[in-house]
């Protein structure tokens, strides 16, 4: 039981962290509150299902194709729907909601509301202290941790990462330093959607694929971003594990009460905000400028 909670909490935390970091990047650099972020995560999951189950591609190939296609879709949506109205933040917010609903309806109409699944990459399980842990769970955990390390390396050690962090802090100055802010924004969208799609690929064997599967991660992700402090990558990271473990605890301790998981997450968020209104790692706005 304890081990189950730890493994499950770690996987959930890592998945939420990857989603929240991607969301924060686009929020910081392009000033887009991307409600469709987790809908793109769902898109990757559906594409993997289509590739592996319906078209009979090898699972790994289906995953790679799904990630590439999802990124392309994200970029097309950004160029066609978001960039032309980028000056109007409220309109952008509504447009991203529309994109999310559109994706949901497309999948609902194409596949119905059925619960679909993708086979695991590796079969079999391990028994540790009486708890059964599938290899797929361990693989998902390992891969998501590797991705988190990779994201950190990308942000701190590469040129694009530096460009991204500086643009997120002050667009105008980045512009004055000779940086093509629009190109940086486009690359950020690609990185962010890529993260969401890869996260989808990592966990899709562990979850059910259905047209509303983007809702719960969305709520968790927004709660995490607010909890951690808007725009703070460290905040997203820490917040994700707090809420990931909170969710695992609820699901395992109260088998009948797992419908409470959203409300527990949001309650944790409210509690933290009562004590620290700027979030765990947020900067208060006066200090910003």
């Amino acid at each position: 039981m304890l081990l189950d909670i730890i493994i499950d909490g770690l996987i959930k935390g890592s998945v939420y962290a990857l989603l929240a970091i991607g969301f924060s990047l686009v929020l910081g650099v392009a000033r887009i509150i991307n409600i469709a972020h987790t809908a793109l995560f769902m898109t990757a999951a559906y594409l993997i299902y289509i590739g592996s189950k319906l078209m009979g591609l090898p699972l790994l190939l289906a995953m790679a194709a799904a990630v590439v296609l999802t990124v392309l879709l994200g970029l097309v949506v950004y160029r066609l729907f978001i960039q032309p109205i980028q000056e109007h933040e409220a309109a952008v917010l509504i447009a991203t909601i529309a994109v999310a609903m559109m994706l949901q309806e497309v999948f609902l109409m194409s596949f119905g509301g059925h619960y679909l699944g993708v086979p695991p990459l590796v079969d079999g399980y391990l028994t540790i202290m009486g708890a059964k842990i599938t290899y797929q769970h361990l693989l998902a955990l390992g891969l998501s941790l590797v991705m988190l390390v990779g994201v950190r390396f990308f942000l701190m050690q590469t040129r694009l990462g530096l460009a991204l962090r500086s643009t997120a802090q002050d667009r105008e100055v980045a512009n004055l330093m000779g940086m093509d802010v629009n190109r940086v924004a486009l690359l950020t969208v690609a990185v962010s959607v890529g993260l969401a799609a890869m996260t989808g690929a990592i966990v899709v064997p562990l979850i059910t694929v259905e047209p509303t599967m983007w809702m719960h991660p969305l709520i968790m992700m927004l709660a995490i971003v607010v909890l951690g402090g808007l725009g703070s990558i460290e905040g997203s990271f820490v917040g994700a594990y707090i809420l990931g473990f909170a969710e695992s605890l609820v699901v395992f301790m109260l088998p009948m009460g797992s419908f409470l998981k959203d409300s527990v997450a949001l309650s944790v968020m409210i509690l933290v905000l009562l004590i620290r209104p700027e979030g765990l790692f947020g900067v208060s706005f006066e200090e910003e400028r």
Partner: protein
Amino acid sequence: MAESFLEVHDLHKNFGGLTATNSVSFNLDRKEVLGLIGPNGAGKTTLLRLITGILKPDSGKVLFKGEDITGKKTWEIVNKGIAPTFQNMRPFRRLPIIANVMVSCLSPRSMKRGEWVKKVEAKAMDALEFAGISDMALEKASTLSQGDLKRLEVARAVATEPELLLLDEPFGGLSPAETDLMAKSIARLHKGGRFGRLHSEGPAMIIIEHKLQQLMKIVDRIVVLDFGTIIADGPPQEIVKNPEVIEAYLGKGGV
């Protein structure tokens, strides 16, 4: 007439009913250091913002090396070799000093393809060395003093290896000792040469400054703005004698 390095042609800019610059024209040579002075609100900063494309002029043209750069995007203009600095400094507050400078090294102009971060970091370090704040490289920019922020601005400008450097009050808020240091850096930069891995051709400069005594020592020529119009343009010795300038700006006592 041979084409000038920088040509500002008949620039007009209104903010609502207020005329910020009115038919401003001047030329700048490749090696020239130009002082831009005038009372507060005369339109000096506006003029720099028009040149760097932060503001779009209502009419008029800016030519840089014979090319029309009016209405181009700021980052494009910066990449052509014009480096702006700010009057009220705006570092990336939450990044360390070194990263602040590295960002300026990222522009396509100062970036060779495939350069790895370590190389960029070394270049940025040389720029900090030049500005004399290399010992603070790892501190967050929000902890810097006024004088050090000015030096950070200089380091950022140097890192892009500019051909034209725009300095908005480089001595503002500095102590006399710091002002001397800053004046020395500016003179050294203008002479050009190698600073570690950075190579300076010796940029032309436009300097806005209220501390006239220090300014006079480093400029070749002075343009005086008043209410958005150029009222005098000439070498410093002549400017201080010009009665119109004395009346508009220097007051009755002179310098």
